[in-house]
């Protein structure tokens, strides 16, 4: 049963499938790292912590990018009411990106990082070895090429079709993503400048343009599953992303507190990042409001659950847990502690992992030719996955927060001479790390339940 409105939407499918495969890899490496926190020498020779961490975070970035691209290929033709400009280009770019991504991850795993740097001529244009931007320069160039091809393809589609608010917001988000990534090529010798502009990629992605992408995908799914008038939903979308950028751009200042920058950033960063939870709160109101006002009962209950879930979890993770340590007098004690890790985990899961799973949940039944929605049994399994993963992530966040509070208490608050050292403090936190690891295993079980839902079929009735 083919229920795709535009046949070229089908190119989204390999993107989604590959994204989920990488997601599984990300979680497995997360579990390895979690164990290394408490059993320090676990796999220390084969997969040193820095390698596991690089694989964990890079897989996250890449699977989310695959998810965003899949989402764009799926929703832009429908929004534009025209076929994709070039499905063939989309498939070629898929294989280029997948091959480059796999080669890069294998590079991390199979050779020492310094050897990888030598292989890829890092000394000609050094860009490697900075958190989240560890990719060899050649991979970074590949990412830019893929992004340009992708934007060209989408841009041409939108140009010949209808220009909806969702299209425009998604496009500005994706263009911003590509433009700010260019700062990853700027790596001055001066560490302060290096870090300052590093945030142009890292912050302006996750607290800026990615929020546009998230908002656009959420708006699209809400229109489809609720049947609420597009005008209403698009108005909300504009208000939310306006708040996101107005607070988020100057909110970058909360990363400049301890970085050889003028002290006014303490004020600018604190004030604007105090506003940053608002758009996420508005997103919660908006998602629930739209679902309550729905004009149709969409058969895909799981997609609606993901849409509501991402709004709530993004608010908690990005909004509340971000605000917890964003004011400069607080950040002075929490900067670079486990509090940061707690926030990072819930924010990425809530805002970005869940929005990708929202669109996958909505689009996959159609892409697989099943129809509007999976059968009831498959949806129930999928919802088990949702709850297991989401509750596990809440506990991961709580345990890391506990670890962070204790860390600040023991290592940061006492005067020099009385404070415990970093390693001595880490020993005291091990109970929290063990519990985090247990929660991580439950997350993996949730992920297995979620993935297995793709194979669940309705029982044959006699």
């Amino acid at each position, binding site marked *: 049963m083919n229920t795709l409105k535009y046949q070229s939407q089908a190119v989204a499918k390999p993107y989604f499938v590959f994204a989920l495969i990488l997601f599984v890899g990300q979680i497995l490496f997360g579990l390895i790292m979690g164990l290394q926190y408490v059993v320090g020498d676990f796999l220390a020779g084969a997969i040193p912590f*820095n390698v596991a961490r690089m694989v964990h975070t890079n897989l996250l970035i890449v699977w989310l990018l695959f998810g965003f691209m899949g989402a764009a290929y799926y929703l832009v033709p429908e929004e534009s009411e025209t076929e994709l400009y070039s499905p063939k280009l989309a498939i070629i770019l898929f294989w280029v990106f997948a091959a480059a991504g796999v080669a890069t991850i294998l590079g991390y795993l199979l050779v020492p990082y310094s050897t990888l740097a030598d292989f890829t001529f890092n000394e000609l244009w050094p860009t490697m070895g900075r958190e989240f931007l560890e990719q060899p320069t050649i991979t970074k160039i590949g990412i830019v090429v893929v992004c340009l091809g992708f934007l060209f393809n989408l841009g041409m589609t939108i140009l010949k079709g209808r220009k909806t608010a969702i299209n425009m917001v998604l496009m500005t988000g994706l263009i911003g993503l590509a433009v700010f990534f260019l700062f990853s090529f700027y790596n001055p010798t*001066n560490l302060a400048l290096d870090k300052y502009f590093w945030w142009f990629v890292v912050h302006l992605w996750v607290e800026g343009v990615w929020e546009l992408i998230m908002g656009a995908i959420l708006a699209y799914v809400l229109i489809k599953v609720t049947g609420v008038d597009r005008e209403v939903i698009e108005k909300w979308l504009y208000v939310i992303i306006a708040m996101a950028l107005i607070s988020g751009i100057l909110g970058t200042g909360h990363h400049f507190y301890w970085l050889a920058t003028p002290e006014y950033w303490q004020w600018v960063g604190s004030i604007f990042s105090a506003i940053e939870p608002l758009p996420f709160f508005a997103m919660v109101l908006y998602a629930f409001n739209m679902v309550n006002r729905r004009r149709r009962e969409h058969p895909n209950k799981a997609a609606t659950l993901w849409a509501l879930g991402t709004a709530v979890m993004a608010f908690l993770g990005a909004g509340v847990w971000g605000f917890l340590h964003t004011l400069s007098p607080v950040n*002075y004690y929490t900067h670079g502690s486990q509090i940061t890790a707690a926030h990072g985990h819930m924010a990425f899961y809530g805002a970005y992992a869940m929005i990708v799973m929202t669109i996958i949940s909505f689009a996959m039944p159609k892409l697989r030719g099943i129809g509007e929605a999976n059968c009831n049994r498959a949806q129930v399994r999928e919802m088990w996955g949702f709850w297991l993963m989401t509750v596990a992530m809440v506990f991961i966040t709580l345990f890391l927060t506990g670890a962070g509070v204790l860390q600040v208490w023991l290592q940061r608050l006492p005067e020099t001479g009385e404070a415990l050292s970093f390693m001595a403090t880490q020993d005291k936190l091990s109970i929290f790390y063990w519990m985090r690891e247990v929660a991580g295993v439950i997350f993996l079980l949730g992920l297995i339940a979620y993935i297995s839902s793709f194979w669940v079929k309705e029982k044959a009735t006699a």
Partner: protein
Amino acid sequence: MSESFTKGMARNIYYGGSVFFFLVFLALTFHTTKEMPERDNRQNITESVERGKHLWEKNNCIGCHSLLGEGAYFAPELGNVFQRRGGEAGFKMFFNGWMKAQPLNIPGRRQMPNFHLNDQEIEDLAEFLKWTSEMDINGWPPNIEG
């Protein structure tokens, strides 16, 4: 939301607001980069410091350690390790011994790999960490433990 607040108004707030705040951000960035030479210790960047930074990156030290509070939180903060581990008097000797003693191979303890750096490279890395510790970063961290 009330009917008098239209989608067009919301759109204008989005485009206008983000352009306005982005321009403010650029202006502050311009001012900040003008001010940074006063604080970021750039006058002391030697060729050795430069080589040290490349070694820091090439061996992905940030994958375990944090530097000025950013990076991984698996191993100690190194932005102030120069002061913590002996300062002018003893840091370089400590650091050379430390790098060569890795991995410590204490069962169950987090392991730092041995990166097989030669004496010159260890010296360069030490110079980079020393230079980093001498930046004015508004009094962070709260104490010597980082």
